[in-house]
Structure formats: C-alpha cells, structure tokens
C-alpha cells in the first residue's frame, strides 16, 4: 500500500511563505466536509515556517523549516482521542473529523509539534489534512508543493519500505525523533536548522597593513583530539558546522603565515569568533 509522505529540503526554503499562504487560500472560507472545517482568517498557520538564525554579525546564516501536521504513524493525538474523531487513512493521512472533534480542546495539547490549532469560533481542533480532499480528486501534489518555487517541499506516495530506505540513504530526518511518533514529514539538510557552527576570520599584519590570511590550516579540537579540519578562504574565513548545540568546550587551532594561535570556545549556540589576528 503506497502512502503519502512529505519531504522538505531546509537548504532550499527561502521563507517566501507561499506554502503557508496557499494553505490559507485553500482552507480559509472553504468547508471541505469530511476533511476540514474552514480555517479562521487569522491565528492559524497550518503550515508554519520555523526559523533559526545562527552566528553573529557578520558571520551568520539563517535556516527555514516549514512545519505542519506530521501525519504520525504513532500519533499522540490519536492516543489522546477518546471519541474516534481522529483517524488514519490507509494512505497514511491523519484526519481530524470536523464534526466529531467539536469541543475537544484537549487534542490541541496532545500534539508534541504544536500543530493542532484551536478554532475558537467553531470550537474545533484543526490541523493540515495533507490536502486530502484534493488528492482524492486526483491532484498529484499538495497546494504548498505547487506553490513552492524551489521544490523545497515535495509530497510523495510510496511504500513504507521505500520511504524508509530513502530516508536512510539520503539522510532524511524527522522532527523530534525522540518523541517516537513516527512522523511522515521528513527533512533534508535539517542540520542547517538543528546544529550549530564555530567560525572565525583569520588575519595577519605585515608592514603595517592587516590582510586576510588565505590557506591557513585550522583544526577543531575536542578534549585534545582533532575532530575536524578546515582551510581558510580568501577572506580568512573558516567554519566548522554540524556541531551539537551545548556541546561544551572546544579549541580552535590555527596555523598560517608561519604563526600559530589557539582559541578556546565554549559552544552553546552557533559562535563566530570574529577576527583572529595571527
């Protein structure tokens, strides 16, 4: 049985919000009986782009991660649901019945991803239903995918084994794997959002003029052992990425222009060490 999955590439999301807006276009003011009641004009973002700003001026980057109902295979909302309002379709899509779920605000808290939204006017918990009403009419893609200019969002319908293989082979990750919810929304390049870096700019003075040092060797040491190496570019910049946040003390050892320098760093979030003069 082929089932729907969503694959999102964090490196290609520009925060244009077209997926978010197309979900509003699709659901605000529109009733899709059996799938969803109208989304309120304000207050809900069934597709919600999270962002992470990393580093300090001027060495920074920003990652955007569109999030939505994960259509979990082990969905906490279904466990919390005592009324049979939430069901999982054979194609993997989780639907909150807009009639049966009325009044069940507790379902909002059941989602560890914050993606069940409370509709105050209709007294209804709501989530993004994977555009199931469109897929059932023969659409081959979701609204967000259609609107996405970069192909950062892609819905695919495949066997679970094929999806698992793809996730393994291509290094796809899910949000909050520790929650054990088995999400059907996967992310490529999630490290851009979840990991951190240490970087800096190496310079040296010669004849009273300070210049960037290109080609300096840089080693990242953890507990005295080198965990990564890098070479500075023509701006003297180096960057060690994909490090864990709050991973503690590191030493950055730089050698260039016949000189050496070591800088200590305590890594909480991404850190730019700024100019390092050899």
């Amino acid at each position: 049985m082929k089932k729907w999955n969503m694959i999102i590439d964090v490196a290609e999301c520009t925060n244009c919000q077209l997926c978010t807006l197309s979900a509003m276009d699709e659901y605000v003011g529109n009733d899709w009986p059996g799938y969803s009641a109208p989304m309120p004009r304000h207050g809900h973002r069934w597709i919600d782009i999270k962002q992470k700003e990393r580093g300090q001026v001027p060495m920074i980057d920003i990652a955007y991660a569109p999030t939505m109902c994960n259509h979990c295979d082990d969905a906490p909302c279904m466990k919390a649901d005592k009324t049979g309002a939430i069901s999982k379709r054979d194609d993997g899509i989780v639907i909150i019945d807009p009639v049966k779920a009325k009044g069940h605000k507790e379902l909002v808290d059941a989602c560890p991803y914050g993606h069940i939204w409370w509709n105050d006017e209709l007294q209804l918990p709501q989530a993004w239903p994977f555009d199931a009403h469109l897929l059932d009419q023969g659409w081959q893609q979701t609204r967000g995918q259609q609107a996405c200019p970069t192909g950062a969002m892609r819905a695919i319908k495949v066997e679970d084994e094929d999806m698992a293989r793809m996730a393994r082979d291509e290094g796809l990750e899910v949000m909050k794997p520790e929650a054990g919810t088995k999400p059907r929304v996967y992310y490529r390049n999630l490290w851009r959002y979840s990991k951190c870096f240490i970087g800096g700019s190496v310079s040296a003075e010669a004849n009273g003029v300070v210049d960037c040092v290109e080609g300096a060797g840089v080693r990242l040491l953890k507990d005295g052992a080198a965990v990564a190496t890098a070479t500075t570019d023509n701006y003297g910049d180096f960057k060690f990425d994909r490090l864990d946040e709050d991973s503690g003390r590191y030493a950055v050892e730089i050698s260039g222009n016949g000189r050496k320098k070591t800088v200590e760093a305590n890594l909480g979030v991404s850190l730019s060490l700024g100019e390092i003069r050899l």
Partner: protein
Amino acid sequence: MNIAALKLSLILLGLSWLLKFQAWRHPEYRARIKEKNLTAQFMARDEEIGRWFTFRDGTISSGFGVRKDADVTVGFKNAALGADLLMPPINWLDQINAQKEFQLTVQGDDGLANWFAQTVMMGQTVGLQMGTPMPDGSMRYCNMTNGGPVFVSVKDGKIVRMTPIDLAEDDGASFTIEARGLKLTPPRKTTLAPHGQNAKSIVYSPDRLLYPMKRVDFDPNGARNPQNRGKSGYVRISWDEAITIVTDEIKRQKYTYGPGCIAVSHGSHHTWGNVGYYLSALFRFSNAIGMTRVHHNPDSWEGWYWGAVHHWGHTLRVGQSETYGTVEDCLQNCDMIVSWAADPETTSGSYGAQEGTIRRQWLKNPKLGIKVVHVDPYYNATAQFLPGKWFAPKPTTSPAMAMAIAYVWIKEGLYDKEYVKTHTVGFDKWAAYLTGEEDGTPKTPEWQEKETGVPARDVRALAREWGTKRVYLAPGGWGNGHGGACRNQTGIQWARVMVCLSSMQGLGKPGCNMGNLQWGTPVDFNFYFPGYSEGGMSGDLENTAMPVALYQRMPQLPTMNSNGQLIPRIWMPEAIADGKAEGYRWVGKSIEHQFGKFMYPAPGHSPVKMLYKYGGSILGTMNNTNRHVRMYQSENLEFVVNQSIWFEGEAKFADVVLPACTNFERTDISEWAGLGGYGHHGQQQLNHRVIIFQAPAIKPLGESKSDYWIFNEICKRLGLSNYFSEGINEIDWVKRIYLSSDLKKVISFKKLLKRGYYVVPAEKEKLRAPVSFRWFWEGRKKDVPEAQPLPSDYKEYLSGLQTQSGKLEFECNSLKRFKDPERPPIVKYEPSWEGPHSPEFGRYPLQLLTPHSKYSFHTQGDGKSSFLNNIADHRVLVGGWYYWVLRLNADDAAERGIKRNDLVKVFNDRGAVICAALPTERLTRGVCHGYESSAVYAPMGEPGKSVDRGGCLNLLTPHKTQTKSTHSLAGAQSIVQVELWDGRTEHMSETFAAMEKDKDVKRTLQEANLVPAK
C-alpha cells in the same frame, strides 16, 4: 435606393434582429435594455435614410426611417461610410478617422448616446463564454496579480482558490540553457510572489469599500471643514449623489478658478490589466477633464536616472543597463556575482514573482562554480538563499567601499587597462581623485573603513578576488540598476560608482556584465503584446510609452491634457499647503531633459483647489508623510475625492470616497511582467511569457465598480463619455488590445476567453537576443532588440553609447555642461546629510533602513485583514493589534532592554511609530530595519499629534531630495531612536507643527512636553 443605402439598411435591420435576439437569449442583456427608455437611431446624413431603435420598459422596437423625435442620432456622412463602419469585423482605424474628420457624429445627450452605443456594442459580446468548466463543478478563470498569473477557481459565485499555473503539454515550449556541461530548464509552471498568493484575502477583505461615502461634516454647499479630514467619520451615499458632488465640483472649480485647479494623483502601481491600469483608463479620464499633473520622481531608479545616465546613457531605461542575454552569459562565463544592495528574493524584480529564484537556485550547483558575495547593511533574503561572504557597510556609505575597491585595482593593476583606454574617457581624472592626487586623501580600504565599518582587509580581499575573476556586478533588485541603495541620500553617488566599477572591468566581455539572473532570460522578444506602460486605452502619446508601438497597432482617439501645470510629487504638500514648489523633470528622451526645472504654480495657472486621488498609498510610501496629513487638512484644498478599493491610508482623508472593485471583478487583458516603456521587455524576468485574459471571476462586491465605469459615469455628466469610452465597453477594449498584439495570429479571441491564458514559446536557440554590451565590447553596432537611445542621441546611428563621447565616461560631459556642485563630473564620496555625520545623530543614534517589503507589494496586500498579517516576519499580533516589525541589532536591543515582540517607539522629530521589535544578527550595531509601505495609518490620537501604530515608517523618513537640482527621493534611510514604548499616545510631529499655521498650537504642545526633548 442606391447599393450603399441598401447595404446600410440591411446591416441595420440585421442589427435590430441581433439586439432583439440577444435580449431574448440573455437575461443580462434584458436587464441592460431595461435601464433606459429612449429612441436612438443611425442615419446617413446624405441619403437621409436610417433606422430607429426604441427602448421602452425592457423591450426593443425598431423601424426603417429617420425620426425627428429621436433622443440620440448617430450620423454617418453617407450610407457607404455607414455600411463600412458598421460591417463586422469593426475596423477601428476607420472608426477613428471618421470621428476625427467629423464624418461620424453623435447628436443628443452624451450620456444617453453613450448608453445606446455601449448597448449596441454589448449586443456583440453578451453571452461570450469565459473560463473553463472543471470536473468538480467549478469554473476556472485566469487573472493577473502584481505578483504573477493565477488560475481562479469559482463556485457558487465565490472564489474558492487561486493557484499558480502548471503549464500543459501543449503550452509554449520552455527554454534550455547549456552551461558548463549542464542543461538548465525551468520547471513548467508559473510562480507567485507572496502578495499574489495572498490575493483572495484582499478581495474578500473587511476593509473593502462597498458603497460611496461622504465625510459627515463635509457639505459641498456649506461648511466643508477641511481641518477635520482624517478625523471625521463617513456616511453612505448613493452613486448618483457621489457622482453629482464630484462633477458639480469639477465644473464649479473650473468656472471659478480656471485651468490647473484640479490635481490628479495616483500611486506608482495599480491592480493589473492593460485597460484598467492607471496609465490607461485614468490617464484618458484625467486628460479628458484637464488637470495639474502630479509629476512623479523616478522612484525606483533615483540614483540611476540622476546619476548613472551621465556615465553611460540609457535614459530610456531610466539609467538602468541593457538587460538581454545575461542569464545565459552569466551561467556560462561568470565566476562570481557581487550582489550589491540587491535583494531580488525580497522584491521579485518587478512583478517577476519567484521566477528569478528558480534560476538563482541553479547557482547552488557546484558544477557551475559561480560564487556569490553580498554587500548590504542587512543580511537580506538573497544572502540567506545563496550563501556567500557578507559585507555590511553602514547605510549610505557603500560608495566609499566601492571607491576603495577601485583604489586597490589601480594600485595593484587589477583592472582591464586596454578596455579603459579604448572604451572609456576621463579615467585619469577619477584615478587622480581615488589615489588622493586631487584632494590629498587616498581612498584606501582603511579610509573607507572609518565610513563604512567594513574591515579594510575584507575590502582588499574582495578587490583582489574581483580583479582576477569574471564578475557580474548586481546592483539593486533587478541586478542591473534598479532599486537598492539608489533610493537613499547617497543613491546618486552609489549608482554612478557602480557603473564606474563595471567600466574598469570590461563591461560586455563574456562573464563581465551586470545582473543577478533576475533579467535576461532567452524568451521570444519579437512576439508583440503591449506592456502596461504603453498606455492601453489612454490615448496619451506624451506621458505613456504609446508612441513606441501601440499607437499604430491600436488606433484610438488621442488624448491630451490642456494644462501645463505640474506638481513635483515629492513636494506635493508644500505645493498645496504653502502654495509653492519647484522640481526637475523625469523624461527619458535624453540625458539633458533632467536639467529642466519647473515651478509650481505654473505662470497664469490656478493653484490646485481639488484633488482627485486614486487609492490611499502615499502615507505609507512617500517620505516624511506627516506633511501629507497637514496637506489634506489645508484650506487650500476645497475638495478631495478618493477612488479606492480599500478604506485605508489617505482614503480616510477624502471628502467623497468612490468604491472601485478589484481586477478579479472586472474584465481586462495583460501580460505577466509586461511593462513596456522604461521597463522595456520586462518579460525577460520570466521563465515563460504568459498572457492572460482577465475574466471577471465574481461580480463586483457591494456597489463597487470598475474604474472604467466610474470614469465613464463622471464623463457622462460632463458630456465627455463618448470621448472617454469611444462608445464601447471594457470587453471591447480588451478585444482591441488583443487585436493589437500578435496573439491574434496564434489563438482566436473566443478560445482565449475560455482558456484564459497563452504561453509564448521560448525563442529558438539560434534566434536568441545577443548579450547586452557585447556589441560595445566588440566595437560593433548596437544589436540588442531595444530602440534606445533615440536616433538623434547617436553620433553615428547605433555606434557607441548615448554619452557625448559615445563611450563610458568616468568624467561626464553632461555634468561638465550642467554645473552642479553636488554632482561633479567625476563621482566623489560625500557622506549622507542624514546619518552618522548629522548633528542630530546624538539624539537619534540609529540608522533606519526602510526598503521595499518582502511579502506585500508596496501597500498592496498589507493590512486589509489579509493573510499576510499572519506572517510573523510581516506583522505581529500583540494585544489584539497587528504591529509592523522593526528589526534591530541584538546588542542594540539588549542595551535598551528590548526583547522580541516588545512594543517599541521608533521616532525622530518627524513623527513616531509603534512597532513590534525583532532583535537580530542580520544587522550591525547602530542599524535597524523596517519595511516601508505600510498600508495602515493608525494614529492613536489626532493625526500629526500622536503616535502611529499602523507601521507607516515613512512618517520618519526625510523628504529632502538627494541633491538640490534633482527631483530625487532620498528617504530609504533615516536616523531615529528606538525605545520601549511607554504607552503614551501623544507625539508632536515637528514636521506637522512646522506646517501648522497656528503657532500657538505648536507652543502649547511643546509646553506640554509633547515634543522629544532636544
């Protein structure tokens, strides 16, 4: 009866059958003929034969002959002419010629005649099928937003959804670019800008104007209370009353004051469509009634028009460069793109949706090996998308950084010396300035660091990399001279120095050009469809690009404004409230036109007493806009009418408000990003050229009407409606535009109406347009497909540039002829008059950047309870109000105790705006950032005397022009203070107070400590 008379009689008989048949067939037509009781007739004046049509209580009767009691008579000079003109298909050129030669005349009341003419025309088009029925029972129509084309799905009279268009297999082919072993083809779909995808929510907005309104304390025959504009409420009135007030006022003023008393002011943009656009219907209307033009400054081109043109010409592109072939050349030959104050991921070029995004995504492919670096005080969306070194000069200072780059090139020999020798003039003069030979100050990287804050070592490294690589310089959002830093106080210097840098590196060589893949796709440039600035139905050959092509392709009555008076837009409040202003012209014909000064009032003209305003954008989009608040409250303005879709901004300062509908509720036709004129071939921002028939998806909401209808109704009361409309309906104009274009060769009108769109196939590879400036670099005649400059601006036709020397001029001949101390012949660095060198910088120590917004399009899409309000990077909900976002450096925020979403007061002497704070590392210390163009103006007390929480940051920006002898906007940067908001709503705007005639008011407010302490 002769043959011609017989022929005419038969045609008229056929017409009477057609009208009766249509009335039987279509309820819509039955309703139409019920509107009036009258007798109208066609007659041949020579033979005195004709046919009359009587409309009475919804029935049509008709008979052979000429009646003396007819209300309306359409007369042909003779039967032969009548038969010719009425024989379908209508030949519009013959129609126009017959009118101009008075061979076709109309007698009777203009309004009745117009009704009759439009009713006859409607007989031909009523019942035309529009749109495509879909399997789910909905109808699919097409439309065009400022952010791209849409399929509009409609069910039960309601818009269900709007989507981009996935191209069908039989739609026009896509292009493929081969570069460095890759074959690059865009996906077969159209894209949307966020404001395009937002469109449904602004159609169904609670802020829509649904009926005409009058200010409660405005009495056209008694007290008008102009001082209460912006404060008083409104009452609903009928269309008849609204049109009566407007037309009575037009007539009264013209009789009382004489020419010039009425000013018409519109925004720089409008809802899309070649008929309904401001350059079309509005221009025909305003030319017909006669008006003082509010003369626009070149608002997105400022530095390029007033500065860059002197170095390289291109006045018909307002100083922006040629644009052709650069996508292919960049992908094939360039090593590095230097993105300088350029953020196409935010601005979408102009109307280009996310089309450029798709191409810039190709840059991420390492096989191309193209590096990108970014120069911008803000780590912008393009820098986020395309990782690369970020240089963050303080706002307004980057000309100094550019000069230091040129300095390094000179010192280290890293420029194309041969090219400079053969293709440029005046380099030695500029080099002498850079090296310090002229003024004793070498423009070293260390020199610039003091101004810009960018480390000297980084600038040196950039100069060395640039000087040894093939580089595309991308200044501004278009990547070739538009937007970006050209809109701040040093914008002229910046644009000039950008051209100078390109001139040192062999502009036109393979891989060396201007661009960032936003413009320059290999689309078909020979398939004609008029751009919006070609003027549509305006008949205006002076103020639109109609003379380029459209006037011959779409014959129409010419229109000409009889008034010569102009108001310089930047100084509009001073002109109206103080009665005096002067400006300089924006005319693309030549470099020298910009030196022409004009004065308001023009000699012998009446000062402006009435303002016809189109929309409500100015408070959000112009600068230091408390001036406009004061202007509206001036007694000099006896009448203000605002024709707007939404009740926002300045619409709340009008005496009478006329509700217009959106483009989804009327008929129109257009091409995506088809600009024409100064944005010639704007379609080269696209991956596929898409032309749209804009079907009315729904009926106009409430009593709102199309702009065309409103203008025509006003014209009816002035006897001008047959001149304005040429007696035809909007759908007929749509057809005339269709007939003017090459569309008629490839798709029938009927099919276009149903299908809704046409995709122009990509150009064959061997016929693609040449690369911009390649001809110049190779010393050939100009061969890119643009007719600019004008023939007389060449020394030898098609040889060289528009400059006097025909070369790139480091030392500008035009600026040697026109002496201007602020624009010397070579570009020099002069710090901004508002910035770190300002005396007020102690009180206002933060530089505020106010660039164009990412999610809304100017004021379009913002406010209006639109979906965009839900986007936290656009507006933030705090305590029940959607506040505009102010970004500031995280340390600056911490120092002020400001955290995310705290409400802060952003202020200076000009005003105060309450925003939601967003501390960030995307800005250096001392710089903050908030988009300009809020649609919401929400003073928390009296306008001008209180804080605004709508987000109109342009209340704070300077309106002074960049230099004295230019009409150039400079307000993209200002200095402000930011502090946690204490909840006080009073804040006296010094600007407002300075314009207050009552000095006591100002003193009282000062004593009450409502002015920021000095």
